[in-house]
């Protein structure tokens, strides 16, 4: 059932990624970050990427190194600044990376809108703030709203706990975060999971991401540490 592919390894799973592609990367800080898939993206070599992710890398994790290596032209995120986001900070200050700062709820809802076929929506979030400057707005039932558009992607990289052969995913605790909405918003979705179980082994009532949203799954029983520090010397 389904056409979800079980990949041999993360590099096989991500496949061809074109220069200039828009890539969504799940996770909220380290929780739910598909570290091995982003490491594979580093290895794969695509450049000029637009990355949609809540944060912009921690320490020497693979997303931070994508930025360090000049592979990211633009970040769309809500909270790039972290105590250890030195690579993003430097790239932002030098102008090497462009930033679209999006309130986190708008980020989540715009990604959800892309997956759900919504053309645009009105939200009160951000009205009257610098982040809504230049955006259309209208008053609805006495409340000022801003018009926000969906965020689509070419590729979504997400991390879940388990997948079955149909590509259904279940997550673990707050590592669920952006995975389900990103999986639905991208033309192609790749999931890194702790374990692949036989089709039929997941409770259909508890499936969070139905397999229709998942193109490839790769089992990574022992993921890279979330804040990988690259060996130096």
């Amino acid at each position, binding site marked *: *059932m389904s056409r979800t592919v079980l990949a041999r390894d993360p590099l096989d799973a991500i496949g061809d990624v074109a220069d200039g592609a828009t890539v969504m990367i799940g996770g909220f800080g380290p929780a739910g970050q598909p570290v091995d898939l982003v490491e594979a993206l580093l290895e794969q070599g695509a450049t000029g990427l637009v990355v949609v992710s809540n944060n912009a890398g921690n320490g020497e994790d693979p997303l931070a190194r994508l930025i360090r290596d000049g592979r990211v032209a633009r970040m769309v995120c809500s909270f790039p600044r972290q105590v250890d986001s030195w690579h993003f900070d430097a790239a932002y200050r030098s102008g090497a990376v462009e930033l679209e700062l999006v309130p986190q709820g708008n980020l989540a809802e715009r990604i959800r809108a892309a997956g759900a076929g919504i053309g645009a929506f009105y939200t009160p979030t951000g009205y009257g703030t610098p982040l809504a400057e230049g955006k259309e707005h209208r008053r609805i039932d006495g409340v000022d709203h801003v018009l926000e558009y969906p965020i689509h992607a070419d590729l979504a990289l997400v991390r879940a706990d388990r997948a079955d052969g149909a590509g259904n995913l279940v997550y673990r605790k707050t590592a669920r975060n952006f995975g389900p909405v990103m999986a639905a918003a991208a033309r192609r979705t790749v999931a890194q999971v702790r374990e692949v179980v036989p089709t039929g082994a997941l409770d259909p009532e508890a*499936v969070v991401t139905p397999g*229709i949203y998942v193109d490839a799954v790769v089992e990574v029983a022992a993921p890279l540490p979330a804040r990988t520090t690259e060996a130096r010397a």
Partner: protein
Amino acid sequence: MTHLHDARPAAATAPLSKTQIAARVAADIAPGSYVNLGIGLPTLVADHLAPGSGVTLHTENGMLGMGPAPDPDDVDPDLVNAGKIPVTELPGASYFHQADSFAMMRGGHIDVCVLGAFQVSATGDLANWSTGEPGAVPAVGGAMDLAVGARRTVVTMTLLTKDGSPKLVERCTLPLTGVGCVSRVYTDLAVLDVGPDGARVVETFGTTHDELETLLGLTLGRTS
């Protein structure tokens, strides 16, 4: 897309039965597709999907991985399809709420949606929810979402009404379900592609291209 009609030459020399139309639709559905089947004739398509085809059925009332009707003893009132008919659950199934289910449809994730129709226009407009009779109780259900949401929307219908009027028309006279949403029409007399460039004959059954043009009063293109 696999065109299995070459394997069934009989079909080309006579109009298709409803079962044959359903089989013809099924033959065009790529292995591994996610498919939504409308109520009525489209439901029959499920019977013609090869077991190994890996096609997954979506029902817009909240399920992927829908299986066939249960044995009468195993009917579960909590497990029905969009026509409120009891169905079953296949391994790998999942349940979701109505907004998530329609998000799946409206977000372009369903590969093929098969619908019935009262009329389809040469440019792919669809009329399938209202006969426009004054005083009739209207009902639309998911028809409008299904029509415009799927990656590919196809229609199964007889080419003529019971009183012989064409259902494939220059312009729909009945209330529309969607504009330019239909790609292909499977009928007893022909398979036709419809779209911005008008209708084109893909295949005929017991009739000819010229006869179809006369019957429909339309100029029809040819697929090369």
